[in-house]
């Protein structure tokens, strides 16, 4: 794969892949490793792919890496201590959005609740939920990424959504299941 195309893809998609992996795996180091490995594979194999298929391929690799990592890791029930504990109203001052994984990420209560619930789901489900809800990808697009079909994706997202809601209501967290502004 030629260097210019690779660097262009890196420039335009590294953040996105990192964000995706970060929310699925909920660990900044793991997410960085996924990004690194995914782009490494792209560099090696990207030349074999058609240009327009590279992004979907990259996302598929990222998805597979996330799934694989969860299986291998013995501490997959992610510690949320680095997410919790921040005052909801505090925001990074004088900075752009978090560029350093070690930098404390400040999330509000609702976001933390969602991530905690997400961490209880199987990683494959988490992945499609993040793709659909966070990245805004359509069923068709996710199906292409996963080399699956639209109905299967729809079903998986539906299962994930129901499971999320069950977890959230089970914890007594009505915030995400009923309309109530918690700020």
């Amino acid at each position, binding site marked *: 794969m030629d260097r210019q195309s690779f660097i262009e893809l*890196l420039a335009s998609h590294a953040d996105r892949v990192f964000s995706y992996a970060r929310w699925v795996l909920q660990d900044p180091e793991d997410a960085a490793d996924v990004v690194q490995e995914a782009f490494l594979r792209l560099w090696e194999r990207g030349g074999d792919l058609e240009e327009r298929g590279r992004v979907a391929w990259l996302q598929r690799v990222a998805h597979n890496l996330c799934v694989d990592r969860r299986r291998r890791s013995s501490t997959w029930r992610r510690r949320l201590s680095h997410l919790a504990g921040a005052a909801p109203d505090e925001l990074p001052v004088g900075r752009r*959005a978090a560029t350093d994984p070690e930098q404390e990420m400040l999330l509000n209560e609702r976001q933390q609740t969602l991530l905690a619930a997400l961490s209880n789901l199987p990683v494959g489900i988490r992945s499609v939920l993040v793709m659909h809800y966070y990245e*805004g990808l359509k069923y068709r697009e996710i199906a292409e990424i996963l080399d699956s079909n639209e109905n299967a994706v729809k079903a998986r997202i539906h299962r994930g959504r129901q499971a999320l809601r069950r977890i959230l209501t089970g914890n007594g967290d009505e915030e995400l299941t009923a309309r109530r502004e918690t700020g």
Partner: protein
Amino acid sequence: MKRECAGYLDLRERYLDGELSPAEFARLAEHLRACSACRREVEAEGLLRATFRSLPALSCPPATLETIAATAAPRTGHRAASGRSPRRRRRLWLALPAAAALLTVAVMLFWARTPLPPREMPVPSAPQALAARQQAEWSLALTLRLIGEAQRESVADVFGHTMPRAVRSSLRHAAPLPEDEGGRG
């Protein structure tokens, strides 16, 4: 779920994606007016989506970018052992052809990133917008504080909006104050 509601599942989904035609929207709205169960579902689903979308858009750590870029540099240094992702810090030191060039690459990558079309990228999140707002707030507060300090030392009231317009106009070309030596002294 009531049987009749099953027929509205697709409409609910597409409503939340903003894909309904006016006619479809009207149909769904009529149903939602009558069906509190579906209303609750739509609200809950909407909140879930909004919360997901509110998660901050993150930037890939520069160190990771540098490591990846080193892969694409002329001399790639050490490759990962098969099957495992190498710890990125070790790779950074081993694979560095020239620190300066890589730093340039990392910096260039940061600035070269052009925004993806909205469809592909999460919209600027609330935390980003609020961070920008705080920066702006801080900058303007600093500006006002400094102006205030200067005002205390000077005779002219910069914000003399109670001053007659003619006087205010004359401030535009006001000579420096007596205690100022003029020029750059």
